[in-house]
């Protein structure tokens, strides 16, 4: 029989004051299997630990129970002591007779009796403990950042700064994301390009960073420290290594009628294009949907003008496979489609635009060269109406139930910029609330009102009506004045709600990372682990986790990078040995466990088993990836056959504890 040592701590008078520790040691010492039972003033002290170590050595103990303070306090201490003596640390159990006994009970007899029961339960548990060894797995010292917006850029830069190689996968031809499309940034009004493009260049020049633009992640396997990722490099029909970005082809391409997606379709570009002047990588891309050469083989102008010989109409999608230790999701956001909000006449009048479109209309590199002109007739607007919460805070089935967070501030910015550049323009902002929590945010909004004379009106716009004369009639309520307003506007700007980029959902499936009902990635803990996904090794950066402005995004990007660096700095990952494991002889392969696992730690294998009469049976059985499992035990209860059990908290251990307490 396994020899068990029981050590009862006085904790000075903390325990001994209420619990008769000697009596506890005596009572527990009489139990079958207990080889030694002793008490001592401070078990956690050097001499107390020595007492335990001596007993382990001399009595050849196979298990140790320490009746002391909470395991949350000193479990690690005592495990270490046992390990030093060659006893597996997981053969140590703690009976909590301080926080859960001596400190809460005053009656000595009662407290002593309870201490004995708790000791008994721990003894019964330790008898069933198995020596556990934490699994180790190596860490591939390379990170993958999915998404090349400001979030992905910042995360990649920070990781590279720490000396680890990083790859950025961006689905567009250039990194930069939404921020590259913005004009100015709140609350400082510095220009987005001025602060973003240096970072983009830094990414391109940093030798630790590789940029896979016009690429997508197509397959992910493995687990924390050892992901294996397949990246699809979409054919851009231009050899990236040869293209110099001179732009000759984009000038000569005869297909001029391609809606310019970078300018949100407000103007046109060619079929071969570089999205914007500061694109990284500055490489042309052929839009296969519009290129005459690719569609019907009639053209080839770009190939002719390209001095570098970079054009390759025969280019195909290629796949590269790479290993990573950590993956960062930075897939960002986009404004929702407004097609279902007919009342605002978006799509009916070209002078009803979204805020992101306004950014382009005000951007010096935009379709109007930075002069604010109405898209319909190119005239200066004299009355501009902003509508807030278009699709945000909506439970009408058309929009999003959450607050998009950034609209109040960027609208204040837009209003301010318009008033500054065109003082003759009247600006109205219709709001439900103005939400400005953030450093210098409320001051910024107040400046818009007080210094720039923007008219903020509490109330919503009910309808925008395009008039035959080209103007827009805006019907809205002014709740403070208790009036219905009818304004004639030249331009209406809608603050469309933001939503996660649609590429996030399929990516989450590839990563087995969980998402909320709005398709934002879920954090491992909403307060304490906000930049980690519940899936180990997957981190979250930027608006893919929830609506965020630039400062917040950059802060979170840095935090995600720090988490990645912390992971990559390790040579080996030592797992928690208290993980689930499946008895494949009992497993039905029914997938119940897989469905409740929050970490995607369970997969299925077809395995061969010996059947009756020398036959071989193939069965589907569950297998737990110990490196990914966090040991919650949800699967153990979902499993109907009892095949799934948890190391360290096994069914038999818990039932032995129950028995010891109840008998």
């Amino acid at each position: 029989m396994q020899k068990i040592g029981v050590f009862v701590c006085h904790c000075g008078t903390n325990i001994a004051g209420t619990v008769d520790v000697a009596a506890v040691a005596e009572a527990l010492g009489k139990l079958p299997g207990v080889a030694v039972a002793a008490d001592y003033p401070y078990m956690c002290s050097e001499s107390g630990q020595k007492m335990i170590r001596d007993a382990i050595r001399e009595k050849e103990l196979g298990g140790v129970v320490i009746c002391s303070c909470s395991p949350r306090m000193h479990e690690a201490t005592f495990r270490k002591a046992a390990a030093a003596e060659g006893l597996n640390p997981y053969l140590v159990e703690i009976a909590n007779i301080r926080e859960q006994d001596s400190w809460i009970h005053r009656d000595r007899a009662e407290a002593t009796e309870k201490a004995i029961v708790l000791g008994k339960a721990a003894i019964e548990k330790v008898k069933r403990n198995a020596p556990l060894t934490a699994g180790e797995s190596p860490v591939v010292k390379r990170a993958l950042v999915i998404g090349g917006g400001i979030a992905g850029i910042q995360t990649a830069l920070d990781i590279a700064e720490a000396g680890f190689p990083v790859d950025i996968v961006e689905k567009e031809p250039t990194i930069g994301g939404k921020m590259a499309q913005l004009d100015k940034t709140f609350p400082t009004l510095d220009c987005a390009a001025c602060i973003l493009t240096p970072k983009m260049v830094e990414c391109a020049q940093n030798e630790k960073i590789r940029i896979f633009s016009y690429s997508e992640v197509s397959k992910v396997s493995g687990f924390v420290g050892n992901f294996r990722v397949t990246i699809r490099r979409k054919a851009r029909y231009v050899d990236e290594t040869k293209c110099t970005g001179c732009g000759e082809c984009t000038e000569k391409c005869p297909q001029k009628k391609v809606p310019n997606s970078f300018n949100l379709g407000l103007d046109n570009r060619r079929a071969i294009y570089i999205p914007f002047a500061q694109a990284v990588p500055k490489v042309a891309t052929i839009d296969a949907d519009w290129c005459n050469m690719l569609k019907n083989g009639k053209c080839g102008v770009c190939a002719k003008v390209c001095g570098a010989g970079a054009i390759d109409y025969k280019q195909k999608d290629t796949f590269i496979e790479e290993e990573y230790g950590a993956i960062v999701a930075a897939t960002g956001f986009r404004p929702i489609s407004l097609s279902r909000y007919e009342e605002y006449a978006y799509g009916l009048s070209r002078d009803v635009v979204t805020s992101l479109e306004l950014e382009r209309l005000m951007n010096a590199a935009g379709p109007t060269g930075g002069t604010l002109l109405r898209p319909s007739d190119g005239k200066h607007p004299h009355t501009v109406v902003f509508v807030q919460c278009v699709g945000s805070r909506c439970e009408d089935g058309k929009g999003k139930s959450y607050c998009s967070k950034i609209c109040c501030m960027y609208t204040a910015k837009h209003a301010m910029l318009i008033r500054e550049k065109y003082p003759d323009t009247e600006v109205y902002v219709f709001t439900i609330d103005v939400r400005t929590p953030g450093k210098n945010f409320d001051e910024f909004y107040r400046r818009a009102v007080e210094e720039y004379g923007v008219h903020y009106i509490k109330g919503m716009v009910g309808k925008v009506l395009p008039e035959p004369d080209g103007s827009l009639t805006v019907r809205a309520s002014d709740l403070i004045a208790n009036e219905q307003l009818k304004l004639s506007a030249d331009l209406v700007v809608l603050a469309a709600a933001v939503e996660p980029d649609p590429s996030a959902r399929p990516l989450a499936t590839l990563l087995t990372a969980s998402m909320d009902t709005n398709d934002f990635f879920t954090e491992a803990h909403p307060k304490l682990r906000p930049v980690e996904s519940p899936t180990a090794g997957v981190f979250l950066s930027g608006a893919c986790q929830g609506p965020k402005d630039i400062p917040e995004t950059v802060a979170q990007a840095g935090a995600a990078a720090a988490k990645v660096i912390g992971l990559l700095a390790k040579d080996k990952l030592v797992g928690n040995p208290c993980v689930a494991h499946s008895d494949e002889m009992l497993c039905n392969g029914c997938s119940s466990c897989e469905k409740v696992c929050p970490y995607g730690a369970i997969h299925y294998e077809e395995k061969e088993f010996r059947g009756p009469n020398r036959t071989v049976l193939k069965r589907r059985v569950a297998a737990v990836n110990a490196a990914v499992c966090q040991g919650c035990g949800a699967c153990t209860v979902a499993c109907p056959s009892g095949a799934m059990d948890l190391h360290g908290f096994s069914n038999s251990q818990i039932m032995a504890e129950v028995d010891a307490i109840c008998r």
Partner: protein
Amino acid sequence: MPMNSPEKNGVGKEEAFRPKIVAFCCNWCSYAGADLAGTSRLSYPAEVKIIRVPCSCRVNPTFILRAFGRGADGVILCGCHPGDCHYTTGNYYTRRRMTLLFSMLDYLGIERERTRVEWVSAAEGAKFAETMRDFVATVTALGKNRRLEDLRCRN
């Protein structure tokens, strides 16, 4: 002997009845909450014995039935508040499982007050102690658990 004879169920010696209570506590919230109750010296009856589990979702209905079978008078399960689970979703599964189990026990005529699920965070030491006091009082008032032991008793 008639089942409800005073000698057998101890009526008249009510003050001597001390229920056996098993409390399953998740490691991250409720066990820490219990520790906080201890650190704050908030007393609750010694009848409560805590079993530490990593997450409330580790608690198999079998454990609860086992406890009753072995003579427990009440079983309480504590976990993180819904939405605050250390493992993100564990307590949501717990909630469904225990809802169904308790409903079944009630359906079988077993006093529903003998089973309880309570969400206690690591900061709620006072709530933990209060919950335990209340639960022990409830179970004590119910008296000894016999329904789960005696279901097949023929007379």
